[in-house]
């Protein structure tokens, strides 16, 4: 073990990334993307294929049918998902793998209440958190159907505030549910059907099975449950950051490519410094965010995760904005994918941890006596 620091992709990680990219290129190429934009429904076949490819089970132990990999590998997979704007409640289902039967194999679609929002509620078989009273919203992002909890519901307001400091998958909501009293708040199917409606989910998972799975997840006791919830929350935030990173990398590529081919005033617009420097700044944001996201995947440190989310959100939102500027009028059309990246980036910026909260987390870590430096 005399090796130097190896903060770079291993061969296995490169292979994994290549593998995920190939699956997505095959199953979710641009025509599939535009079909998803027009259709608005979740492609269950694609979901199962993602399951078969190990997208959801990536971090499950091999004994449980998973790939036994870690957060760094999950981050690489989610980065690829972000690149191609893969739709669906990917993070919630990934986090449910091994806990909610069928999630690991993509046979069940799991979504979660985050703050006051629920993504893909109608398409989901299982909802983590209390989505009672959620109303559909005409989502700004054609690739992310949204429901919103009423603002005047005390719990929702509470959740919203809690969301400000520890947003994400509300496992505590799930824990309540194992008492059986509020099962509907854990499970959800269109129309508010009771928990038995879960049986309509592919794979035939049963209510008791799910409830027990949630129970098991909390079995380690209050502390353990809190730890688990915290870890799941951090993972949710980080995987969202990874999606943002993928989107940011993609819009940077798109802008650079367009700048090479679009001509005005007798040369490619990428030959003009104004455009050139816009693209350079996009790339810088991507690479800085990448270092932060990958490092957080290695350390799992909450402050690293907050920093990663903050920088990845910025890279994604500003990347899409700048890409739109490079595309000019063409970027303003519905047919260009730029706006899909921007709108999705807005959705993800609100998911799990907002910039405001991330900044507070990073500031709080500047302890009064902190020589804030960790190798």
């Amino acid at each position, binding site marked *: 073990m005399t*090796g130097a620091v190896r903060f770079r992709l291993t061969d296995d990680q490169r292979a994994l990334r290549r593998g995920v990219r190939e699956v997505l290129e095959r199953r979710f190429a641009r025509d599939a993307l535009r079909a998803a934009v027009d259709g608005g429904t979740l492609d269950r076949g694609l979901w199962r294929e993602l399951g078969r490819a190990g997208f959801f089970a990536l971090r499950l132990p091999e004994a449980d049918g998973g790939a036994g990999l870690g957060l760094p590998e999950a981050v690489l997979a989610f980065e690829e998902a972000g690149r191609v704007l893969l739709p669906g409640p990917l993070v919630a289902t990934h986090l449910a793998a091994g806990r909610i039967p069928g999630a690991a194999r993509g046979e069940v679609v799991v979504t979660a209440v985050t703050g006051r929002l629920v993504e893909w509620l109608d398409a989901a078989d299982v909802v983590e958190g209390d989505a009672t009273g959620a109303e559909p919203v005409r989502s700004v992002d054609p690739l992310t159907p949204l429901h919103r909890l009423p603002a005047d519901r005390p719990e929702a307001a509470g959740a919203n505030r809690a969301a400000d400091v520890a947003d994400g998958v509300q496992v505590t909501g799930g824990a309540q549910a194992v008492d059986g009293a509020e099962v509907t708040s854990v499970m959800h199917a269109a129309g508010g059907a009771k928990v038995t409606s879960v049986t309509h989910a592919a794979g035939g998972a049963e209510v008791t099975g799910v409830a027990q799975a949630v129970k098991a997840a909390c079995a380690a006791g209050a502390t353990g449950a809190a730890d688990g919830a915290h870890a799941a929350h951090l993972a949710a935030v980080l995987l969202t950051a990874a999606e943002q990173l993928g989107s940011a990398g993609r819009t940077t590529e798109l802008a650079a490519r367009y700048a090479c081919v679009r001509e005005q005033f007798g040369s490619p617009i990428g030959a003009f410094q104004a455009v050139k420097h816009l693209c350079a700044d996009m790339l810088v944001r991507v690479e800085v965010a990448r*270092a932060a996201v990958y490092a957080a995947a290695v350390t799992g440190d909450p402050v690293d995760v907050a920093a990663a989310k903050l920088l990845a959100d910025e890279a994604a939102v500003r990347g899409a904005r700048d890409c739109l500027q490079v595309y000019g009028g063409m970027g303003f059309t519905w047919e260009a994918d730029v706006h899909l990246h921007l709108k999705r980036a807005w959705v993800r910026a609100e998911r799990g941890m907002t910039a405001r909260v991330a900044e507070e987390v990073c500031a709080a870590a500047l302890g009064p006596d902190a020589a804030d430096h960790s190798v």
Partner: protein
Amino acid sequence: MDLAYGEAEEDFRRRLRQWLAGALPALPPKPAPDDWPARRAYDTGWQRMLYDAGYADVHWEASPTLRLIFLEETELAGAPYVGANFVGLLHAGPTIAAEGTAAQRERWLEPILRGDEVWCQGFSEPGAGSDLASLRTRARRDGDAYVVTGSKIWTSHAEVADWCELLVRTDPGAPRHRGISWLALPMDAPGVTVRPLRTLAGPAEFAEVFLDEVRVPVANRVGEENDGWRVTLVTLSYERGTAFAGEVVACRRVLGELAREARGNGRWDDDALRRRLGRLAAEFRALWRLTQWNVSEAEATGAVPGTGGSVFKLRYSHARQELYDAAAEVLGPGCLDLDGAWTADRLSSLSYTIAAGTSQIQRNIVAERILGLPKGR
């Protein structure tokens, strides 16, 4: 993807830390900021201590990882900076090591490592800044010497240097990059005049160097005649992603100090300022990780990604300026006091987006060499 170090590295870190704990108290008191001879003595004295302890060549022989650990630990321990040894250790030395003859290596390298000789850099000229290749300092061959006339600017430590790595034009007729040679100029040669250059930060270590028919032996040329541009690029690409490693550690310390100050003076309660500091904390965390990433790549492939650090430098230069602007906001009216905690650093940070390649030039590099955008315009 890993952030753990190997046993050998951790061992190096432990021993270095131990040595620093013993060595630093033995240092003489820090000299006055503008007493250049005393600063030279202090800096070279420190280099001699490193030499005796076996750390002198950490920038040359050690792996990028060990270099990173060295920079991190010396910064954390508050050890002296490389100071007057900068050009010798990080520019001229590596160039001579890579491109010099055996005799040249013999003559110049050991004195650098021992802190016996100090080098300065004669690259920039008043008319050749971003466009370095437009330099005009002329060297005419006369027997076994070049006769050099011209002027250089931004030459750090010129007043106390023994040698200057000098770029001169040896063939004015050739294309810009093809007529340049690299010479080792003895600073005590007749015809060399050094004039201190005052900057907006006050008296600093910079100088202008005027060369009036200075004779430099042809034997002092490193590399072939008219091949100096390539020789220079070797120097410039020598750095292995660690250029600002110590500074990033220092910036994170400053950020902690700013938080302490803000908590003390009540500014911490300002949501906007507190979150601004939080954002900077995220920024410098990421820059440290990017340093580790670049070092890891350099370790594995020999090359620093982001085209040798342009990506890093763009963001770091900006973040450093942001840091000291935030410091000013923490201090309020106190930011106008030159003796205040961060005022001098705020002023010197203004050069970061200009020196060693302006941010505009760095963006060109990133866009053209990484993203493949077309040249021109």
